[in-house]
């Protein structure tokens, strides 16, 4: 088949230069964009791309497009924007089924109307889609208490390059039939298929919510208080350690350097008791409770902090709780940091010029049980960095899984771990 014939068989339409810009990924621009109407349509489109074969980058809300290495090739942008329906929602069952292009905020609003919610809060829910949240395994500040995306997805429908649409899991909250392919696709960054539909379990909204802002002298004291809270009953819904500049980004100014911000959720009595306990732990660590009042945008800004718009570089360390000190130990003075001690997670915004050296230092400090990745960076900086770090021990299996489901390597080629 000649080149022209091949291009003609591709789905979607050729786009103008202006249309290309919103679909930029790092330095690359697509020549076509396809917007499937539903899951079956996505599968048909993928099949055509696979026959060509031509490289596809999947687009949800675009909030995590700076995650991952630059794609090796990129011709077709597949956008889930037309797949945005809430397909089923049975409040009494606490379950729902949605199309992958649905915005998180739209989903949360539908749930809120029934007094329910999905306790996942990835950055920028006004733009982030359900599918993007799964693919990027984007989680919020509640991960230590409520778990991550994998703990709330009960079923999935995925379009594969073979042109097939295949499901796994189901609509019930407890189910062990067949392989758990939800886990496979969550965090796979769209390298194995296009997530087309997602089934969630949801929960009743908590009765009350409260915040506590404390100031501590050292990051070690702040981190220790955060992990101590995680190890006891009545753990907070979110515990975040912020340096002065991160605090400012969240709309608060302070004359102290390290802040521990706590969010409590649950039944009224529980929240009250949790707050008392936290207060005494903070005092025991030599800290001071500064108040329970925060600007209304505080928690939203904190949630979005790790996925900034623009050209900032964000490095993320994920380590066992006891290794957080080692991470803080190698951070340069004046680092812009936001950590979630109970989850063993430290996000750092670093100047582009020092990104490589900081990354190296953090990887050494994180040890072999930890992991340090570049969570966001502009294309030029990424070129100089090993975004994912060395491939993990199970990597040959991962490569074989990719080969089994995307044999022509058309999906997000090169963006994932180990060049997958």
């Amino acid at each position, binding site marked *: 088949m000649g080149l022209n014939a091949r291009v003609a068989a591709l789905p979607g339409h050729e786009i103008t230069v202006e249309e290309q810009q919103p679909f930029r990924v790092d330095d690359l621009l697509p020549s076509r964009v396809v917007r499937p109407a539903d899951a079956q349509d996505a599968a048909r489109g993928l099949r055509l791309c696979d026959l060509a074969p031509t490289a596809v980058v999947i687009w949800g809300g675009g909030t995590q497009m700076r995650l991952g290495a630059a794609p090796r090739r990129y011709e077709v942008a597949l956008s889930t924007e037309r797949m945005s329906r809430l397909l089923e929602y049975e*409040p*009494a*069952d606490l379950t729902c089924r949605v199309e992958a292009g649905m915005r998180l905020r739209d989903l949360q609003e539908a749930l809120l109307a029934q*007094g329910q919610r999905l306790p996942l809060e990835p950055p920028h829910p006004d733009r982030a889609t359900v599918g993007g949240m799964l693919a990027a*395994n984007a*989680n919020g500040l509640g*991960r230590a208490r409520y*778990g991550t995306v994998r*703990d709330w997805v009960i079923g999935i429908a995925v379009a*594969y390059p073979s042109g*097939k*649409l*295949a*499901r*796994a899991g*189901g*609509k*019930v*909250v*407890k*189910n*062990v*039939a*067949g*392989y*758990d*392919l939800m*886990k*496979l696709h*969550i*965090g*796979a960054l769209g390298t194995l298929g296009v997530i087309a539909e997602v089934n969630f379990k949801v929960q*009743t909204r908590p009765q009350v919510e409260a915040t506590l802002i404390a100031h501590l002298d050292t990051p070690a004291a702040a981190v220790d208080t955060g992990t101590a809270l*995680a*190890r006891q*009953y009545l753990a907070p819904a979110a515990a975040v350690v912020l340096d002065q500049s991160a605090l400012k980004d969240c709309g608060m100014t302070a004359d102290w350097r390290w802040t521990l911000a706590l969010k409590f959720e649950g*039944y009224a*009595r*529980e929240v009250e*008791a949790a707050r008392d306990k936290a207060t005494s732990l903070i005092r025991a660590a030599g800290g001071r409770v500064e108040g329970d009042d925060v600007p209304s945008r505080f928690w939203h800004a904190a949630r979005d902090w790790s996925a900034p718009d623009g050209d900032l570089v964000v490095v993320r360390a*994920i380590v*066992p*709780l*006891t290794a957080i000190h080692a991470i803080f130990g190698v951070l340069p003075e004046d680092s812009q940091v936001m950590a979630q001690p109970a989850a063993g997670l430290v996000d750092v915004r670093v100047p582009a010029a020092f990104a490589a050296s900081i990354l190296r230092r953090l990887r050494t400090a994180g040890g072999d049980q930890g*992991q340090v*990745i570049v969570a966001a960076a502009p294309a030029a900086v990424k070129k100089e960095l090993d975004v*994912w770090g060395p*491939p*993990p*021990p*199970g*990597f040959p*299996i*991962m490569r074989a*899984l990719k080969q*089994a489901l995307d044999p022509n390597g058309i999906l997000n080629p090169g963006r*994932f*771990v*180990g060049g*997958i």
Partner: protein
Amino acid sequence: MDAATRERLLGRLRAVVGDRYAFADPYEVRLYQYDASPETALPDVVVIPGTAAEVAQVVKICADAEVPITARSAASSLAGGTVPVQRGVVITFARMDRILEIDADNLRAVVEPGVVNLSLSQALRPHGYYYVPDPSSQGACTIGGNVGTNAGGPHTLLYGVTVNHVTGLELALASGELVQVGGRKAGSASGYDLTGLFVGSEGTMGIATKIWVKIQPLPPVQKTLMAVYPDVETASNAVSAIVRSGILPAAIEMMDKLSIQAIEAASHAGYPLDAGAVLLLEVDGIPELVEELGERMAKVCRESGASEVRVAKDEAERQALWKGRKGAFSAMGRLSPDFYVMDGVVPRTKLPETLAKIDAISARTGYKICNVFHAGDGNLHPLVLFDAFKPGQYEAVLRIGDEILKLCADAGGSVTGEHGIGLEKRENIRYIFSDDDLEVMDRIRHVFDPHGLMNPGKVFPGEVVEGSAPSRAPDHAPRRAANVAGGDEIWV
């Protein structure tokens, strides 16, 4: 396998694990033909390795000789997961039963696959922690087996099943390699989530030789309520009402009239004999809160048609209330010599109509069916009562089982909530998955097991079964209610 091949294989395996821990004597291997399901098949050789490295070597030897491998832990599988239908080698973990580490600082424990579920929580208790998933068989089943089936339990309603509590695995792969996936840290951003993918794969992707699990602080207090209803329909509607009320109970269990009769005959737990159904509900937390929630829950129960709500006033009363529930399984022996347990799931709101349909099947076929189950998550365990010595009954009961699973599937549910597909439900899996769905899963299996040696004949439908067929020996009656496990501890 011919005798000479078997001897050669045995020799190689003994060189790895020692003479005592690999055997092929027909008498000795007989024990390993069973699990808690009715199916049986004899293995050629049984191996009891002592370390992960030995497991890997055993797998390598089998892979080189193209011999099937079946992982077997406590063999409490109710789905025939450990029955070696294609014969070959059974690997069992009786010697790999060490708790390697309790790392309270990182909220983790690291265990070998043969660690008994309950003994992990017992070891954690002095530290103020526990391991959440509590299958009713927790006194016997192991963490390795729980990883194999992604086991649940009464208290997984609120806190999640096995996969939600496992953060890492060391695996012996079909290639004979030993690899670690995931580990001690919480999240993973290092490639595909192989840990999550592996949990629940029923031994078809490899063998877990080491497991990192989350541990959780013990709740300060628990409160248990019994609510008495005129019939299962009212009780089922109450379950939805409770869930919608905003209360998050740690457990919601239901027993129907027939189960109550069996339980009362066996253990006199004090359930009213004229009740149509009983709900057992539990909340946990700090004392002040649990008090309040208990009252609120009692109110919802009464408003949703409970004729009586009894609240356990102290730990002794609480234990008494659970005793009946825990003894339910063995109590069936009072009603019938044999029973067949199903594991269907339906959306909570479909409980009333599903239970009515099961009732209709019972009326039509003349077989009594008890319901004792995890009502909070819609996970039904219908127990079909029969007598295996009466010709045709076992076959009839299997057909009833198929019919029940079909109606669960048609209600938008699943054919297994926690016991696994195993051997038993490999055809039933078609009720919920299309050929395309299964084809993708099969591709994934081939990645892990290109030569079809890891627990072959399980999970997937339509496998050609070689060697001994998965049927009962003519002289073997299916398990009796009374001898599945030890009396009061049984808790499905």
